[in-house]
């Protein structure tokens, strides 16, 4: 299953997209709302990262978002891959999220959080213009993870 979106324009277009995205994510994770919210948060932060650092708040530039779902819950191999393409200047080298962060640190906190939530996350340059933000999340929960969710952990 593949979902493609392109967003550009004002903040309200991004807000509208994110609402639609959350509904799609809830369906993809069989209404485990917490997981849907976590993935939604990561996509929001990735878009914010592009707008702040790559596009320097030029909201007219397009951002392409592709969700690719493979496997199934029944077979316990359901995986969501997210690719977010921007058209800004290519970064010098692949960006990997920090694994530690100071408790008062503001910068890179969004990247750090994505790294903690997602199973895979990096940003890589494509040619001279543009970058791909790649994220991957296994959607099939193990029994202990389901218990944690039920207990609000």
């Amino acid at each position: 299953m593949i979902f493609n979106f392109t967003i550009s324009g004002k903040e309200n277009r991004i807000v509208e997209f994110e609402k639609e995205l959350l509904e799609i994510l809830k369906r993809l994770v069989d209404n485990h709302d917490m997981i849907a919210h976590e993935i939604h948060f990561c996509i929001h932060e990735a878009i914010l990262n592009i707008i702040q650092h790559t596009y320097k708040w030029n909201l007219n530039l397009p951002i392409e978002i592709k969700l690719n779902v493979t496997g199934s819950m029944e077979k316990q191999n359901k995986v969501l891959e997210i690719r977010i393409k921007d058209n800004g200047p290519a970064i010098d080298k692949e960006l990997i999220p920090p694994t530690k962060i100071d408790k008062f640190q503001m910068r890179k906190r969004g990247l750090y959080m994505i790294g903690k939530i997602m199973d895979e996350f990096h940003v890589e340059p494509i040619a001279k213009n543009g970058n791909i933000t790649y994220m991957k999340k296994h959607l099939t929960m193990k029994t202990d993870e389901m218990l944690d969710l039920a207990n609000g952990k």
Partner: protein
Amino acid sequence: MKVKISIIEDVLAIIKIDGEFSIFDDEFDLFAKEIAAYTKMGIYRFIIDLSNVTYVDSSGIGIIIRLATGAMKKDTRACVICDQPNVLKVFQVSNVDKIIKFIDSVEDGFKFFEKTTDFHRKVDL
């Protein structure tokens, strides 16, 4: 995002936020500036009521960190009311839960600041 700020006796601010606490919200910039003005005025006792917040992003978390930093410099904590699981999860994943004080009500916040600072209510609020 709707924001209501009440200043108590010039030294304590109660901030109630409803809706999405996100940088993409139209009100966010103005709110960030207001907060900066209050901290410049020397206010460091903050009770932030997020019980009606449905979503918070890293920019919203950034404002909470700013308030928490100011409070910790004065040997106290920024107080946060929040019972939304997905918002609590963001606090936990960002490690910000370690630098704030979670409380159940505004009244708990008053009691906390009376205990940890020289704040005393002149009248029952």
